[in-house]
């Protein structure tokens, strides 16, 4: 699989000191193997260029290690790539295989081709998602130095990260429940800092709207694909119709078939464009905005801890007991809070910049693609019309 073009969804600075991409990928029955390729002038690595093979679980491990690292509390952790999901596509292919007897060879071949193309598209997308994650990490001034990241890139053995077992998954679940309850609590606390107050309000609303837009765009694209599938079926029917008629009508029917393929192409292309430029963009920013929210949550948590530490210090001073301990604790909380606030501010500004740039890029590309296809289709349709009308 040739390396897909980078920067599908996000606008990233390319930095010669560390470049990461996924140069190859292999889809096996129940897993995907990504070949992570690194080019670096950094002294940390033994070589300047090297590759390792990684699976999805190892990406998750890396992401989780960032999330759990207290030092990174003040950064937006790049969202983890979604799990490769070929189930739907596999199911369709299986159904097709089962129904092979009920359709003509032509129909079967065509449907198979379409499903294989769909499978390939999903595959390419999952590769891109995993790649974007790595690139985000590599572009981040702090995260790129992370030791786990270097191990991930360089260690050419299996990292042996098993997926979380039931107990751990349950722990995660409860952590999230607590977090969201906390989140509600914390969101109620008005921030002194205008910048963060604004960001909080903005992100909460934005995140929900992106979620809605993402869901609606998915629905729209699914309908589009259904319509395209129908047209595909119609084309197959017309084909069989044509081959049974007398030769005169057969020529006519083959033109019909041509036209229907054209219609299919029109629909399928539009659906694919929308999918790439719009749906993927929205999905990605859904995840990023969640990561930004998480940052804000961590900051709020730190603020609450700081405020609690202040209260505890006051109490200790009043009682004149464990004052030193309280002071140290308060200083730590203060320091943590300030550190997070400082980096968070920059992160959120960067987030906005990235977001605006990504939207701009994708909207422009969407419009350009739609125009290109519409113009192409128009030309083709007009030629068809010319042929048909000229023949009367």
């Amino acid at each position, binding site marked *: 699989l040739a390396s897909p073009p980078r920067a599908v969804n996000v606008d990233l600075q390319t930095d010669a000191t560390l470049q990461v991409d996924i140069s190859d990928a292999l889809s096996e029955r129940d897993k995907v193997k990504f070949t992570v390729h690194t080019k670096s002038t950094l002294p940390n690595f033994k070589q300047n260029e090297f590759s390792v093979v990684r699976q999805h679980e190892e990406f998750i491990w890396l992401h989780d290690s960032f999330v759990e690292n207290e030092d990174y509390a003040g950064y937006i952790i790049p969202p983890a790539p979604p799990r490769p999901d070929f189930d739907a596509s596999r199911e369709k292919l299986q159904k097709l295989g089962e129904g092979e007897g009920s359709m003509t060879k032509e129909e079967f071949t065509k449907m198979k081709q379409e499903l294989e193309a769909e499978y390939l598209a999903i595959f390419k997308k999952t590769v891109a998602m995993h790649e974007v994650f790595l690139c985000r990490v590599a572009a981040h001034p702090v995260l790129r130095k992370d030791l786990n990241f270097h191990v991930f890139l360089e260690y050419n053995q299996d990292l042996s990260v098993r997926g979380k077992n039931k107990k751990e998954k349950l722990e995660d679940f409860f952590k999230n429940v607590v977090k969201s309850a906390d989140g509600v609590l914390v969101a109620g606390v008005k921030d002194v800092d205008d910048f963060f107050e604004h960001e909080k309000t903005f992100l909460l609303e*934005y995140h929900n*709207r992106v979620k809605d837009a993402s869901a609606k765009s998915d629905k729209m694209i699914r309908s589009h694909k259904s319509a395209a599938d129908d047209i595909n079926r*119609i084309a197959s029917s017309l084909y069989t119709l044509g081959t049974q008629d007398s030769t005169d009508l057969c020529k006519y029917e083959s033109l019909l078939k041509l036209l229907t393929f054209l219609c299919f192409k029109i629909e399928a292309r539009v659906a694919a464009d929308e999918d790439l430029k719009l749906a993927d963009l929205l999905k990605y920013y859904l995840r990023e905005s969640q990561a930004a929210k998480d940052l804000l949550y961590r900051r709020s948590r730190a603020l609450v801890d700081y405020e609690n530490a202040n209260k505890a210090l006051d109490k200790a001073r009043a009682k004149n007991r464990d004052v030193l301990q309280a002071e140290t604790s308060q200083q730590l909380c203060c320091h943590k809070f300030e550190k997070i606030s400082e980096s968070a501010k920059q992160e959120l500004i960067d987030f906005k910049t990235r977001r605006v740039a990504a939207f701009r890029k994708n909207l422009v590309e969407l419009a350009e693609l739609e125009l290109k296809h519409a113009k192409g289709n128009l*030309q083709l349709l007009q030629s068809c019309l010319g*042929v048909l009308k000229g023949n009367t």
Partner: protein
Amino acid sequence: MADSTKDPPPGCADLQELEDAEELFPEPALTVKTEPSASEPASLPAEDISTNSNGPKQDLLFDEDPEDLFAEATEEVSLDSPERDLLLSDGPSPAITPITPPTSVITPCIGHAHDDMFTHSSFDEIEEEEGGDLFDMNISVSDPEKVGDGMNAYMAYKVTTKTSMSVFKRTEFSVKRRFSDFLGLHSKLASKYLHVGYIVPPAPEKSIVGMTKVKVGKEDQSSNEFVEKRRSALERYLMRTVKHPVLLKDPDVLQFLESSDLPRAVSTQALSSAGLLRMVNKAADAVNKMTIKMNESDAWFEEKQQHFENLDVQLRKLHASVESLVCHRKELSVNTAQFAKSAAMLGNSEDHTALSRALSQLAEVEEKIDQLHQDQANADFYLFSELLGDYVRLITAVKGVFDHRMKTWQKWQDSQMLLQKKREAEAKLQFTNKPDKLQQAKDEIKELEGKVQQGERDFEQISKTIRKEVSRFEKDRVKDFKTIIIKYLESLVQTQQQLIKYWEAFLPEAKAIS
């Protein structure tokens, strides 16, 4: 990833191939195959010559020259077909026989051999006449209005005919008709022409549910859609009927189009006794069909029957796919509208001004695209889905006509068998001394002989008619589909042009995001 979409299957959407596709629309070949020459006149007993006094005007001037009769002969009539002998009898030409038979007569041809020839020739003649008096007719069905209230209410449609054809008294006229009138017309035409091999276009289907909604007075979108669907179907039905050169001249058709008063067709109600009787007859027919084993001597019929069976299956499948497409497109329209709203909301909450504006613009574009989807769905439906539905029903009529041929054959065979039996009985009677019984037997035999000969003639007649009809049907089918495809392509062209407009307006907004 953006541009690596799959290449289209080879050979399609290729401009070059389109340019080579100039020959894709061949004109059906009309060759003059036979050279008429005199042969023995068939001697057949004359039947009642019931002239069609209520027929159309005698504008059909019969051409004395027999050679012109075959100007429109198609390849289908083989040189050695038995029909030819009938056609080539050179008896004196009687006065014009208009094509419309009275309902009581079985065959459209009136009377004896010469009339047979002239009927065929009259059919050819009509076609030739068509060449002189070109088919120029446009019927529109419009202005549906509800008449009456409650369950007795009905929709009245205005039927407007615009024509320059000589068979009509005026060039433009309109009448008010209701749905059962159309059904009545079809019923009459079917009873006159189906059993002699003419493909009578079927009437639009009844819909109790649809009509009830209208009667009850539901003024919502679905009942409006129903009325529009029906109006369009009625229009197509009438146009198909008048395009048939024989049906056009039928007095019932003319009366339907021209006269302001029409006796109400009562036996068309779905739940009437007549309706039930029809259903029972249909079932009986189906059973009979299974039991007739015809010795098909003519491979053409066998081949064509198979062809129509296949066509039936394929068209039904296609129809189902198109209906599914219409459904998904409507869904798409709904989902696009929802997405548009969602994008607008997103734009509202976006705090970067230029991006916010661009997202709102995107929402507007998507809203407009939603409208395009709706229009496209309508085109899909009205152009394709309905056309396919019409053809599925037409094919049923075609198959019916083939079935009638089988029944005609059966009738002929039955007469023959009966004749055989009578002859045997007569032979036996020869040895008895019952002169009056013998005479009776001889009379019966004479009558049966006539019946057998008539049966054979009927069979050959229907066979010939069917050949003509099938060729005409296929020609029309190609024309119909071609017209629809052109219309559909034109609607697609429009859609693409609109899309270009919308995205071109949007692009600078997207680029303006800084």
